[in-house]
């Protein structure tokens, strides 16, 4: 379980670093609008929240991979009477 958590959290973190670098090289936080009104947090705050948001999406992506890579026997185990492998 702890290892799966590593697989989920870590790749997202790793990719969030270049992603946040690229995004904020191209877009100035000054130009950002949130539901039509200018964002009223400091630049540092925008970068931080941007980083955390991208990280969260990355982790979500990894979590989905973890979920989908389980084999049918692993998913069915104990449900339809197949013996535990």
């Amino acid at each position, binding site marked *: 379980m702890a*290892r799966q958590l*590593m*697989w989920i959290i*870590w790749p997202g973190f*790793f990719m969030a670093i*270049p992603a946040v*670098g690229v995004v*904020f*090289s*191209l877009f*100035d936080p000054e130009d950002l609008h949130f539901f039509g009104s200018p964002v009223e947090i*400091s*630049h*540092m*705050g925008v*970068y*931080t929240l941007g980083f955390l948001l991208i990280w969260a999406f990355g982790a979500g992506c990894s979590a989905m991979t973890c979920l989908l890579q389980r084999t049918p026997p692993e998913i069915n185990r104990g449900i339809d009477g197949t013996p535990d492998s």
Partner: protein
Amino acid sequence: MVDTVQPIHFHPKGPGDEQPLYEIRKKIYPRAVSGWFAGWRLTLVVATQLAFYGTAWLEWNGRQALLFDLVSRKFYIFGLVLWPQDFIYLTALLVISALSLFLFTAVAGRLWCGYACPQTVYTEIFMWIERVVEGDRVRRMRLDGELLSVRKLGLKAAKHGLWIALALWTGFTFVGYFTPIRQLAGEAATFSLGPWESFWVLFYGFATYGNAGWMREQVCKYMCPYARFQSAMFDPDTMVITYDRQRGEPRGGRGRHADARALGLGDCVDCGICVQVCPTGIDIRKGLQYECIGCAACVDGCNQVMKKMGYAPGLIRYSTENAVAKGWNFAQMVRRMLRPRVLIYTVILAVVILAAGAALLVRVPLKVDVIRDRASLAREVDDGQIENLYRLQVVNTEEIAHRFNISVSGSDDLKHLKIISESQPIEIGPVSARSIMVRVRAEPEHDRSGSERIFFTVKAADDEKHMLRETLSVTEKSVFFIPGHGR
């Protein structure tokens, strides 16, 4: 061949002199080792950390020498100031880093992991603190086995206290590369750090403490992508930590002055030192494994034993698959370093470095963006002339002020082309940008309509006080619109 590791006696003095050997448990207690490679590891730990903790405090031109100023979106790298428009150099740096990694992985394996990776470096420092507080490997294992006592609690508290202090300092230094560190130090001293800065100091500090104090080799084994694709970069001529099986086997214990050959034994005395010193807890004698971070601790450990036994060093050494199999000497092995793979990596790397360096060298510290005024396309003024409106974004990326003249040129179809703007030359302060509105007037030839290409040239008009630079000139193209007759 014996697979299990068994203790042997180096100095068979008596039954009480047995060297205990512990099985590898879940928690790894690496034994400290000294030797040539350990010396290099220590050197690199000190060098990288002096650079990391120290560089943030260096000054240049009255500002922090290395500062990635996220708030004003400028990167100060000693004499260089990079703007978001210079993104390409950052990309080049990433490409150079990746290619360098491929190159020296192909040549000598995971040098990065063993010597320079922050994970290794901080683990080394944290283990050093642990050794100072709790004692050597045997004492640490004994302490962890003890019931909780005042002494144990004190030692653990001291260790974690030192770890946390170092981790917080590391986090603080990290943030100091993004927010001027002297200002940050002042805020930290009065407990008035901003919320985001506090978050990053704690976050980075926590990551350091967790990774170097608790997770250690698990980061390399389960989290690092580099370890997983190392096999793609290795070939039989890559230098890796290798156990010389032919020389070592059959392994087994023997007396110090025993004739190994007479006993039918190889040079491996099966002392298990190579396993004890391994930070990832593997047995290198089983061959190259993905867990091996190439730190060469086992090389140092084994060489010490070989010396005690009076054998030649290098039973475990940096070598290549081919060299071990074919019994090559060092020179023969090194000659294979110049193989196509390595040469190709070197050439590509050299080209990228030269290109990026050249681009950086001829880079004009002046940027101009021409934006046509969207509100009014074009209008006719008094004497039949057409007027277009433009906004020029002029960025002076140098750390000295400059004065600039703006001029306009175009095709011969546009007569009396002239520019109307605020009084020139226009002064722009050091490392700053200005938006300048200009009007361009022209009289179109043959009464034609449509778009004509025009060029704006922004040129430094500095006097001696402003340090004249002949080369400081940028030309940007734009379009001059001439409305049709239906206007």
